[in-house]
Each structure stands twice: as C-alpha cells, then as structure tokens.
C-alpha cells in the first residue's frame, strides 16, 4: 500500500490479546496525511494477518470486536468513524473488547 509522498509517522499502541499477536507493545507506521483509520487497520493486517479476524467484521469494516481510540476517543463516537483521517500528532490505541471491574 502506498501512503503518498508526504508521509507522516503514526504511533499505534496495542493491548491485551492484540499485543500478543503482534509481539510488541507499539508500532510506528508511515501514513499519508489524508489516510484513514480504516486504511491504517488494513496496513496492520497486511503485516500481521492474524489481526484480521480481531479488527474486521464479515464485510471488511472495522467491527465491534475492536475498540480504536484516537487520542483517547473511541472512533465510534467520531463523526466519520473508521473514515476518520489521521494526522501525525495522534496516538492510536487498539483494544479488543475488554472489561472487568
């Protein structure tokens, strides 16, 4: 996947079982300024195919099985959801559905 000429670095943190799949706590990826969260997730799955079933639903969209936070805000509450565009200043946190108490 090409991110274009003006690439920026996005810092992605992974937690719980997603971290175990990737084998590391964080991943830095080069993204174009206009890239979306959906594209970022697709790039992650290209590198770690096992993530696919955790990130995407049957239609290939970011599903309810994952919680994606952009600077602490779950993208499901952002107006463009998975089509939210990324900038290099953002922290992306990926969690499987986790809860406790």
């Amino acid at each position, binding site marked *: 996947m090409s991110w274009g000429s003006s690439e920026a670095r996005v810092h992605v943190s992974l*937690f719980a079982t997603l971290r175990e799949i990737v084998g590391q706590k964080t991943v830095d990826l080069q993204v174009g300024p206009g890239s979306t969260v959906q594209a970022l997730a697709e790039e992650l799955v290209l590198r770690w195919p096992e993530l696919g079933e955790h990130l995407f639903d049957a239609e290939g969209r970011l599903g309810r099985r994952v*919680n994606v*936070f952009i600077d602490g805000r779950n993208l499901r509450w952002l107006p463009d959801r998975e089509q939210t565009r990324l900038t290099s200043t953002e922290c992306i946190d990926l969690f499987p*559905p*986790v*809860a*406790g108490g």
Partner: protein
Amino acid sequence: MDARTFGEAVAHVDLATGAVEMRPAPRDWVEKYIGGRGLGVRYLLENGPEVDPLSPENQLCFMNGPLSGSEASMSGRWACVTKSPLTGTVTDSHQGGWTAARVRWAGFDGLVFDGRAPKPVYAFLEDGRLELRDASAVWGQGIHDTVKFFQERYGAKDLSVCAIGPAGEEQVRFAAWLNEDDRAFGRGGTGAVAGSKNLKAIVVRAPRRTSTVEDPEAWKDARRKVLDRIRDEAHITSPKKGGLSVYGTNVLMNVANTMGALPTRNSQLTAFGERAEKISGEFVQESILVGDPTCHACPVACKKEVEIEEGPYAGLRMESVEYEPAWSLGANCDNDDIASIAKMIDQCNDLGMDPIELGNALSLYMEATEKSWVKDDGLEWGDASAMVALVEEIGRRSTPLGNLLAEGPARAGQEIGHPELAMAVKGQAIPAYDPRGLKGMGLGYATSNRGACHLRAYTAGAETGVLPIDADPLAWQGKGALVKAFQDLHAFSDSLDLCKFSAFAETAEEYALQYAIALGEAFGPDDVALTGERIYNLERHYNNRAGFREGSDDLPARFLEEPSTLAGSKGEVSELAPMLEEYYRERGWVEGVAPEAKLRELGIL
C-alpha cells in the same frame, strides 16, 4: 438443594444467648425479592433502618440465592447484608470462592446473626447443624493464620473458612470478610459489624451436592446454552481467550487510562500516563503471574495469582491483583510499583480490609500533605514503603494516624478540616472510574444505594464499547435510563446470586431461563426487570427511612467543578444535575425519595 424450596432453611442466631433457630423466610419475601441481596435487604428493613450499625441491634445477614452453589455457571456467590458503619445506608457485598456453595450444600439458605456474643465465637456449619464455638484461639490473628488454624483443626477437605481479621475486630469502618484467604465481602464495612458482634468466622464443612429440579434435561440445556455464551470468543469471558480470563479484571487499567477515565492522585488527574502500563493486567501477566485460580462453577478464572521474586517483598505469593486495588493503591496514590501493590493487597486480605477504601484514605492524606494541611510529616505521593507500613497501622488502629484513616476518607477528611479531599459518596469512596471520562459511572456512583460503587450500575461495559449498546462515555443524555436499567438487572443477578461478570455473556433472558427452570415456574425477562426494580426501590426505601433524602445523591465537587486536563476526557466535568433529573424521572422518584405510590406499585408496601 432445590430452588423450589429456597428460603426454608434460614438459621437465626442470637449471639447474646447462643440460641440457634431454623425459621423459613416468609414466602412472599422470597417471591418478591428472590434471595441474596434482595432477601437480605428485606430482613434488614424488618429489623429497622434506625439502628446504630455497630450496636448489637444491627443485623448481619448472609444470604445465598436460589442458584448459589448450583451447577449454573458463576453461581459461587452469596451476599453479606447489613447496615453499613461506613455509610449508614443498607449495604450488601458479595464474594466468590466456595463458601457460598458449601453453606448451601450444608443445608442453609441463609444465616441471620443478631445481638453480640459475650466472647469471641465462630459459627461451625455441617450437615444442617450450626453451632457457635469459642474463637478465642484465633481472635487477634490475621485471616491467613485463621484459615490455617481451622484447616488443621477440621482438615482442609470440603472445608471453607470465611473470617474477619484484626481490622474487623478493631472495627475499622471498611473492614471486610475474606474466604479462601483472598475472596472478599469487600465493601461497606461488613467486617466491622462482625467485630462489633464478636463473630470471628463462619466455618463450613460440606461435600458437593447437586441440584434437584423438575426437568433435569431442560436444566442441562439451559446451562449448556449459558456456557456456550460464556465460551463464545466474541465475549471477554471466553476461557483462556477473553480478556477477563487471560488478564483478569486488571485488563481495564490501560483502557481506562486511554479514555481519561482513570482517577489519578486522588482524582486531581484523569490518567496515569505511560506509568499505567507498569500496574496493568498486561504487565502482571508477562512479569509476575503464576496461576489462575477460580471459584465454584466458573470457567472464566479471572483471579490472578502472582509471585514476587525480587526486592523487599520477594517471596510473596498471593492473589489477586485486581483492577480496583491496583488502581486504588497505584495510580490513585501515584504509585507504579506493582510489587508493593501486591504486598498491600495481601495485607488487606490478611488484616481484612477493603483496598478501595484504604487507597482513597491514603490518597486523601497524600493530597493533604501536598497542600501542607497535615500536622505530622505526612505521606508523600508514591512512597510505597511508607504506605505498606501505614496499612498495618490502619488495620490495627495502632497509631493516631492509623486510627484516623481507619475511619475512612470521608470521616478523615472531616477530621482534618478538608472534607472536599474525600472522593466519596454517602461516605463510601469511589472506585476506579473517573466520572468525568465515564458519565454514566458518575451517575451510578451518585445514585448507588450503598455509596459510591462501580458494581451497582456498571455502565462501563457499555461506555467502553464492550457491550452492544450505544453509550458515548462523554455524553450525559440517556444515562438516566441506562443507569436504571443496569441497576435493576444487577439487583436481580445479585439476588440469584450470580457473579456480576455473568452480565458480559448473559442477558435478562438467560437469567430468567435458568431461574424459571430451577423454579419449575414461568419467569421471563420482564419479571427480571420488574424484580430488579423492586429490589432497588426496597433499598432506597430503607435509606430514605435511615435519613437519606433530597441531596443525598451527589458527587464530590471535584468531578463537577474541575475539568479533566488530559486526553480522552479533556475539558469534561460530570453533568450530574441533568443526569439526576433524567434518572429520577425514569425511577418515578421525587428528589431521591421513593414515594409511597411507587412503593405500592411495586408491591413493597
């Protein structure tokens, strides 16, 4: 063991005289309030809401539910219900382990203790008999030694020991009961009530028994359906796959931190930054985890046993580094040393104290120290060794400072002249969710009938995006209905009595299905909601009569007036007033008071 006759085997124990009498619970109480929490509160209401919690007139109820100890998944629970010496409200607390099941297998649906024993005693239960026996040999002992003592006396096979420690004996206002060494009736000071009654322990010996039901095949099918849901990999309860099973409850640490919903430094901040990782479930799992113990009939195994290999606490092996104490003694106190946190949790398990209340008492004194409002050397943020030393002083009330903080943060804040430093509601301290980052949890704290509590409503399951319910954590609109729905659902499951984590896999439909088959009668999801609402109103009625009226449902001013400064919740405060208005409308309450018409509608009066 038969749900159809549940409630017929309730032991009433007069501690003053030693008399024990088996009396069935009134049938209409069982029909209306089920068991566990609901039935226990009904006993407490009958005893009168005006009693002094630490007087012989207070009642201490241990109530199983109709499914406790059965083959139903997550049914190893029972309730301890009393008037709280911490809050003055009715309180109930639940514990896992095996004591609940063994008490049921020994032939008891519930135990009701009245009065005060002239000298320390314990209750010994076996084969339908309850005897009070001399506890002077273990009075003053920690819970770990108390468990060992009884295991040596009676043998460990089929034995459970549920005991208080020195904190209960000293009537620390947040003293707890522990069973199996580590599973607590944690909140509300039920251990202090036991201490005031000279009741040290409940010791039960009983082999496993199976349930008797009218339709065994239907019972088997229902349990299989529930087990399939628990095992479903899409749910967090899935054994060895789901977050709760692999990492324990502390899997919450990082997500709460990310959302700006992790109260830090006595709630001055809403996140612990990169240091949250060092006290998280992920860190525990990769560094110190050695075992995954479980409770009766539970495939999840959320308990996490750890061993410390280095440093001042080397050799410590304990369970369990849960999310709540990892937060209360960690981020809340600016402490990122997981070994010291494990040590303090184990101290709480041995002394018999609620680590949530303890952590809030420590953080209150740390903030007072920061602001130069203390008269001694104070307690610095994150000073783990000083915290460990002070925990012992609090649990034994052995120093003036220990004695002050043993009263809990609300009373300690009043005593030092700064009640605003106490992060408490109705006298009970907050747990590990910041109301500025999770608006529903804040409303849940304010309207909880036992003081600040995460388990009454637990909207976090929806607000963190786990449950398939749309609930923006930063929106206040709609939270009144959401909180009411969860409060009612959990009031019901607490009365069955099933583990709260069942709600991650089960709905009212599964609760109703299991209860209906066990009863051999029709019981549907609508009955679950109605019964839960009735129980919640019963508790509110008790509290209203105990003096909690308009204005009692509140939050510490910090959450209303000091906006979050960190990502996830930046700029947010709790919009409590409009949420309360919406909530009271949903409840049919008038300024926090359940009116007579509502009580009659629900069959309470």
